């Protein structure tokens, strides 16, 4: 079946603009995770959704970052007033159970 998909694959934006990154998880997977991969920080956990429960936002680096998951499926990660340090690859993963995650190809964000 189809894997995790993310769009866009690449996004270039100007500093100060808002961006939205989309993740389509594998159908039926109840858990969804966002991670960020950057040269300086490696792979960092951002946020976690499990079913209809309130998300775990403990990894979000600032209040400019937010995410939502509509209908327990598609998720959107929003970064407001982007900064150059936000440049990274944003990875989404979904999981049928909490200990095996399937990753999407990522969105490469470049803030100029």
């Amino acid at each position: 079946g189809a894997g995790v998909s993310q769009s866009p694959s690449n996004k270039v934006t100007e500093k100060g603009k808002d961006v939205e990154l989309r993740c389509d998880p594998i159908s039926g997977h109840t858990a969804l995770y966002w991670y960020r991969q950057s040269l300086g920080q490696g792979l960092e956990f951002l946020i976690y959704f499990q079913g209809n429960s309130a998300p775990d936002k403990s990894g979000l680096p600032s209040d400019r970052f937010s995410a939502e998951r509509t209908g327990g499926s598609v998720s959107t990660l929003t970064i407001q007033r982007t900064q150059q340090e936000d440049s990274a690859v944003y990875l989404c993963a979904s999981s049928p159970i909490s200990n095996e995650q399937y990753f999407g190809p990522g969105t490469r964000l470049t803030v100029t």
Partner: protein
Amino acid sequence: AQSVTQLDSQVPVFEEAPVELRCNYSSSVSVYLFWYVQYPNQGLQLLLKYLSGSTLVKGINGFEAEFNKSQTSFHLRKPSVHISDTAEYFCAVSGSQGNLIFGKGTKLSVKP
């Protein structure tokens, strides 16, 4: 707090030679451990996982890893590598919400 240390940032090796990629973790609770592989410009793919049971875990592409609780290690091994194994390898431990806590990664370079 949980953490993962990958002791080697880069490992060069000749084709058909054996390889070991080292991983140590820190956790005060029972752990789930994972190895992921990332090929250039691609997302993360699960190689293998340890949840419980046998401490020797076999994964895809001929890789295996051994969980050693006393040494808090989960080293990845392959007896004979191929050029196609050239990639970055990430060791991870599962956090309290099922989120993954990653090491900094090890770049495996297989030379002919």
